[in-house]
């Protein structure tokens, strides 16, 4: 069927189940997004920013869509990255559908709200109208964002986190996405909004995982999320993510963030799962003194493909960014790191640093690294670096001469390589879970989570 655009026909199936049908602005937003997506189709490697990542396997598989959650799935408790005893707030989605019975949002401080897009469309559609697409629309050249257009057309639900001025949430907020519950391969498109008013602060943890094999093998699924982050003056968002999808799954995530004066967007993501994943983060540093940290780690093996693509726009003077991605790639797996930093004409005194470090554990493992600095201001400090190599043979030999078997010595060195990134995370509560997922990967059980 070369003439049909994959996923475009899902709209007909989903239409009656999509939220906000009584809202004309939303219907027209969806319609125009669908029209754009239909015109563009899925991205192909012919596009510069998709040069190293092909969605052909996604096209071939043929996913369905469903407007209703599968009722018979029962889970006692969704997995958590936080210690069981710790205070935190949780929203749980299964195949993109909110599961109130698994969620537990405790008492949030005055001025903090954690809810779903569907609920907010019902109660405060005007607020959603104001914010949906506000950040991504300002940032993106729509023609390059077919996946976001697809998301906009078919978004069923997602989380909304908003904080009023000066609100500080001390307990972390965890959003868990569980995939693979369908009895057929499903595609779903979560849409999330994070809006932080001046001087508010919160830590958000996203955990993307799966229910584990239901039959002989888990069902493939496709999660295509879109997230918009708006940080007003002095706001701080710590945004952490573990992508541990099923190994048959596809995961694409688009994040657009706008960071205001003296605000901080601090992001860390770790990827161990999915057959094919792409995380695309675009940050606009739009107020003086705005900062962002985009850090990440990934562990890939088999024939997995993991793409981290970032773009940071320095729009005004005195903004900073630091970006460190560390990866471990084994077997015939492939990783892509594309990091673009654009320093606009007015953005004097920009401080930008980018580093990509990769361990390639086999001859067939591959990394494609593309750093891009576009600098239009003359008084800036910007640097980038990239390394790719095998484990340090000298260190490996040293450990083995002390009696540590080769496999354990290798694991020790890989863990040490990534541990630094994990331990730099501000929310120390999730470090044990992230280190555990590194441990699981090293033990050859990548999909297993605590």
């Amino acid at each position, binding site marked *: 069927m070369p003439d049909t655009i994959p996923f475009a026909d899902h709209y007909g199936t989903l239409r009656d189940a999509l939220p906000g049908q009584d809202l004309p602005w939303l219907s027209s937003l969806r319609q125009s997004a669908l029209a754009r997506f239909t015109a563009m189709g899925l991205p192909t490697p012919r596009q510069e920013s998709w040069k190293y990542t092909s969605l052909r396997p996604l096209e071939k598989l043929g996913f369905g869509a469903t407007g209703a959650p599968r009722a018979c799935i029962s889970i006692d408790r969704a997995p958590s990255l936080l210690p069981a005893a710790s205070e935190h707030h949780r929203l749980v989605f299964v195949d993109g559908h909110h599961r109130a019975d698994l969620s537990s949002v405790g008492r949030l401080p005055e001025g903090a709200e954690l809810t779903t897009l569907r609920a907010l469309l019902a109660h405060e559609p005007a607020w959603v109208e104001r914010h949906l697409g506000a950040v991504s629309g300002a940032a993106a050249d729509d023609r390059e964002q077919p996946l976001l257009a697809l998301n906009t057309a078919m978004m069923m639900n997602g989380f909304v986190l908003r904080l009023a001025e000066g609100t500080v949430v001390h307990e972390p907020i965890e959003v868990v996405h569980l995939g693979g519950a369908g009895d057929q391969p499903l595609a779903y498109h979560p849409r999330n909004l994070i809006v932080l008013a001046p001087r508010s602060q919160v830590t958000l943890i996203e955990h993307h995982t799966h229910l584990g094999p239901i039959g002989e093998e888990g069902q493939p699924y496709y999660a295509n999320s879109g997230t918009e982050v708006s940080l007003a003056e002095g706001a701080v968002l710590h945004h952490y993510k573990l992508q541990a999808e099923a190994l048959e799954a596809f995961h694409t995530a688009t994040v657009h963030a706008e960071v205001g004066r003296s605000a901080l967007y601090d992001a860390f993501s770790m990827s161990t799962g999915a057959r094919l994943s792409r995380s695309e983060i675009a940050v606009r540093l739009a107020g003086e003194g705005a900062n962002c940290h985009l850090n990440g780690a990934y562990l890939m093996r088999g024939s997995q493909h993991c793409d981290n693509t970032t773009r940071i726009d320095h729009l005004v003077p005195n903004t900073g960014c630091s970006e460190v991605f560390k990866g471990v790639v084994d077997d015939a797996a492939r990783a892509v790191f594309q990091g673009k930093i654009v320093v606009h004409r007015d953005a004097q005194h920009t401080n930008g640093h980018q580093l990509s470090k990769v361990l390639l554990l086999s001859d067939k493992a591959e990394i494609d690294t593309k750093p891009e600095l576009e600098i239009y201001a003359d008084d800036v400090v910007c640097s980038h670096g990239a390394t790719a190599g095998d484990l340090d043979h000298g*260190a490996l030999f*040293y*450990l*083995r*001469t*002390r009696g*540590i078997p080769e496999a354990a010595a290798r694991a020790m*060195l890989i863990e*040490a390589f990534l541990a630094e990134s994990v331990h730099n995370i501000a929310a120390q509560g999730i470090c044990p879970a992230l280190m555990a997922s590194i441990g699981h990967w090293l033990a050859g059980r990548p999909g297993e989570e605590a």
Partner: protein
Amino acid sequence: MLDIKNLHATVGGKPILKGIDLTVKAGEVHALMGPNGSGKSTLSYVLAGREGYEATEGEVLYKGKNLLEMAPEERAGEGVFLAFQYPVEIPGVPNTTFLKEALNSVRRYRGEGELDAMQFVKLVRSKTKQLHMSDDMLKRAVNVGFSGGEKKRNEALQMAVLEPCLAILDETDSGLDIDALKTVADGVNLLRRPDNALLVITHYQRLLEYIVPDHVHVLAGGRIQASGGKELALELEKSGYAAFSATAAA
């Protein structure tokens, strides 16, 4: 304990060892001296099993077993220990984690039970005390940012914890001031027992004042050119290696 017979070895295809014969018995301390480039470090790496250091002829028996067939970790399990001339820095691995993993790996190999965290801490504390080491060095990443002396002390600590039967000390005196040298030598001397043996590789006689050898061998041109008692080291200190280098070249 160690029987090296007609050992030839190459590094990157280049012949370095050209027929070494050396027998070390339990309870003995042997010093191996020689000029730079004589093959001293090559011998230590061949004995420890480093990749790229290939034995092409001859054999090495350790306690009657073929040492050259064993993986480096098996050699450690069997009780062979190499104190490195240049200890390797391992960022991100705390020294104490490394020591515990090493000790328990060796204990597993030997069929002994693993030590739990408490037993391990107790053991290490007693050893660091003997070596005048601070606990701070245990928390830091292995050898990262250590001074030359601290690195060598750390080698001595590993040796003390792993309690090898055969310890090979490769230029342990290099980069050490006299106080550090004494401390490290004291640590090494604690291992001198009738059932243990030491092979001390050194360029200078200095270390041998503190670790007194029973036998001294001169290595030059990939072969042992002379063997004798501890007085041979003193002779070398006076006359240098020139005579042996000439012999080797001839």
